[in-house]
């Protein structure tokens, strides 16, 4: 039985851990706050930026998932580098395949639909940071020190996704309170919305299939909807759902 260690217990980490457990894997979730372990999923508290503590908490692992989501976007440049480096180091020390949850920031302004081989051309701070994290991981992979892969998704949608982690869910909460939603950018520009269970399915596929290693992959996502279309779809469904 393979042992999978998931670092992070937000929507992505939790959904991934549940899916791995359903598939019969041994699962340990590491997070800042820990949590009560069940028969299916173990929990431990650890500082993901502390490589000694992290390696100790992991113990043995076949696959290590980076599903960390530093909550404050304004602190990414301080919060991400030590966590990214510690996860990479821990994967190297334990021999685990490192599966990182990524995003589309590294591409910068797209010139069309983005594929996993689109150039990492971001010029903004957060985009350059995520691009560099992947370049560091890939360089370590190519040097034979560690095996890595990365799943990249667009903005999240799904039950249990908190407003703080999704523009769509935040606007939905505002509209549900009967208030006008002031969306970011053009309400009619189409946008990919990635469903969190599809993210988990992709992470698990990458973690359990050696063909994933050495490159990034995109999370399968339904055809794009504009912010206006997506919010209208969600509100309409809410209005018509049956109680219970």
């Amino acid at each position: 039985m393979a042992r999978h260690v998931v670092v992070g217990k937000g929507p992505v980490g939790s959904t991934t851990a549940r899916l791995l457990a359903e598939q019969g894997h041994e699962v340990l979730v590491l997070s800042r706050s820990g949590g009560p372990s069940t028969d299916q999923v173990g929990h431990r508290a650890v500082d993901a930026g502390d490589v000694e503590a992290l390696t100790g908490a992991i113990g043995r692992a076949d696959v290590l998932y980076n599903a960390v989501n530093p909550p404050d976007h304004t602190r990414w440049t301080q919060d991400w580098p030590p966590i990214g480096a510690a996860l990479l180091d821990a994967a190297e020390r334990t021999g685990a395949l490192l599966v990182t949850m990524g995003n589309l920031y590294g591409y910068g302004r797209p010139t069309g639909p983005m594929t996993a081989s689109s150039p990492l051309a971001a010029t903004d701070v957060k985009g350059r940071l995520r691009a560099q994290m992947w370049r560091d991981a890939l360089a370590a992979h190519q040097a034979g020190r560690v095996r890595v892969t990365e799943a990249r998704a667009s903005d999240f949608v799904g039950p249990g996704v908190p407003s703080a982690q999704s523009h769509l869910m935040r606007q939905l909460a505002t509209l549900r309170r009967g208030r006008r939603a002031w969306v970011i950018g053009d309400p009619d520009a189409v946008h990919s919305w990635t469903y969190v269970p599809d993210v988990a399915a992709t992470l698990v596929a990458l973690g359990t299939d050696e063909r994933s290693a050495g490159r990034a992959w995109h999370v399968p996502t339904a055809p794009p909807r504009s912010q206006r279309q997506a919010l209208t779809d969600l509100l309409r469904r809410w209005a018509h759902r049956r109680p219970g």
Partner: protein
Amino acid sequence: MSGVPWPVLRAVGLAVPVMREVVDIRHQWDAPFVLDATETTETFGLRPTPWDDVVRATTATGVPV
């Protein structure tokens, strides 16, 4: 539903750091921002959950917080 004009966001960003961060990634929101995962589907056989099912599942629980 209305779009916030970028000059307003920039002005707010002077006082609110998170708004400044949003202005940095305006390219994600002022033009089509679309992901293509054809390779993942072809390699691993994974398909996206249809949008109608996403909408149904997302609205099946409580109001987001």
